[in-house]
């Protein structure tokens, strides 16, 4: 691969949007070409800097206002619906029907996994045990489950473990391990294969969340996050390699 091509495709590569073959060619070139390596390192450093920019979370009062709006508009809707007898109910119902099949088109378990993720974030019930120390998190699961989930810290790969909890997915209790990447939370739900009939690797998007599934040493893993698909893939690889 020529330096011009590397320069052209460098951003696409770093954004995780380049095909596997060209990505390998870039990695190979950058290893041997000092000039391109400098360029590469510069762009990587820039990305790290920019990702450290402030993340502005929604103020609580905004959340409260939006919730109030949602409740108000739905009760108004109910009143109108009663009065207009079923006409509006039908249209609201069909709205949900249109939306429903789209979300169940993927995997039913993936849907449940996303629900679990959303629940954990919204109810502020992310942890039963909050610790960055895996020697605290691992024993916490002892006796609470009929299996022992593999607990590893991936802080060195940029995904620190921040805690764990029990969750309920697919009709059984599962171990939920919580990791973080910058401001993004990653939930990993682990249970023994066997209960989970989902076949091997899967990468889908459900309601704006990226979901990955894989099976490793007899355990079924579901990772879910609002992190982009490429970085969630990186996370999945790091977890499988550990």
């Amino acid at each position, binding site marked *: 691969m020529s330096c011009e091509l590397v320069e052209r495709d460098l*951003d*696409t590569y770093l*954004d995780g*949007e380049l095909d596997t073959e060209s990505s390998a060619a870039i990695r190979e070139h950058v290893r041997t070409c000092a000039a391109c390596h400098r360029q590469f390192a*510069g*762009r990587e450093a*820039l*990305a790290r*800097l*920019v*990702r*450290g*920019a*402030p*993340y*502005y*979370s*929604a*103020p609580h*009062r*905004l*959340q409260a*206002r*939006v*919730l109030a*709006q*949602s*409740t108000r*508009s*739905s009760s108004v*809707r109910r009143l109108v619906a009663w009065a207009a007898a079923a006409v509006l109910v039908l249209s*609201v119902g*069909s*709205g*949900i029907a*249109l*939306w429903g099949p*789209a*979300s169940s088109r*993927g995997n039913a378990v993936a849907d449940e996994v996303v*629900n679990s993720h*959303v629940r954990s*974030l*919204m109810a502020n019930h992310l942890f039963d045990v909050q610790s960055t120390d895996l020697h605290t998190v691992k024993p916490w699961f002892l006796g609470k489950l009929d299996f022992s989930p593999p607990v590893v810290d991936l802080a060195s790969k940029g995904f620190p473990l921040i805690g764990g909890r029990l969750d309920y997915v697919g009709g059984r209790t599962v171990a939920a391990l919580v990791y973080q990447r910058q*401001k*993004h939370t990653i939930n990993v739900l682990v249970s023994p294969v066997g209960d989970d009939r989902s076949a091997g690797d899967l990468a*889908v*998007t*459900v*309601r*704006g*969340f990226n979901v990955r599934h894989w099976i490793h040493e007899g355990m079924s893993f579901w990772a879910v996050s*609002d*992190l*982009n*698909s*490429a*970085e969630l893939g990186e996370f999945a690889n790091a977890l499988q390699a550990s």
Partner: protein
Amino acid sequence: MRARVFEETVLPHLDAAFNYARWLARNDADAEDVVQDACVRAMRYFSSLRDDNARAWLFTIVRNTWYSRGSRKGNVADATPFRDDGQDQRADHALDPEERLLQQHTVALVRGALERLPVDFREVIVLREIEGLSYREIAAVVGVPIGTVMSRLARARERLQTVLTLASHTESLR
């Protein structure tokens, strides 16, 4: 029922919506107004959410709300006073005071550089680097072809790299 489905689908992305709006508006008050309006619209158009990407869908609505408010001011930095909110909680408390100061200083530099980017460049950087959207998702939110997303990203990065390299260079001369 509908309210609950809405809350479960849209509210988890409220932080992301606010972050995007805050980077567009560059101040809290406008960002809050934009997100609140956007949520009202989102509720109204909720049944138009056909695919599974509620986050990108909400970003699109936030963006349209922002532009329809005529909020697009000049491209130069506004006079938002410096606030260090959100930085303390990000600061790694394992760092010693000097390192922490340096980290906060770097964050302020990056924030300033981002805020001075023209909004067309700023939003693609925020969506890509901070919100982690794919090229395809950004193209859908911004309403331009993927090629335009790529060229805007490239130009934004060139500018940022120049500004930030210059800043750190000036620092070291001091």
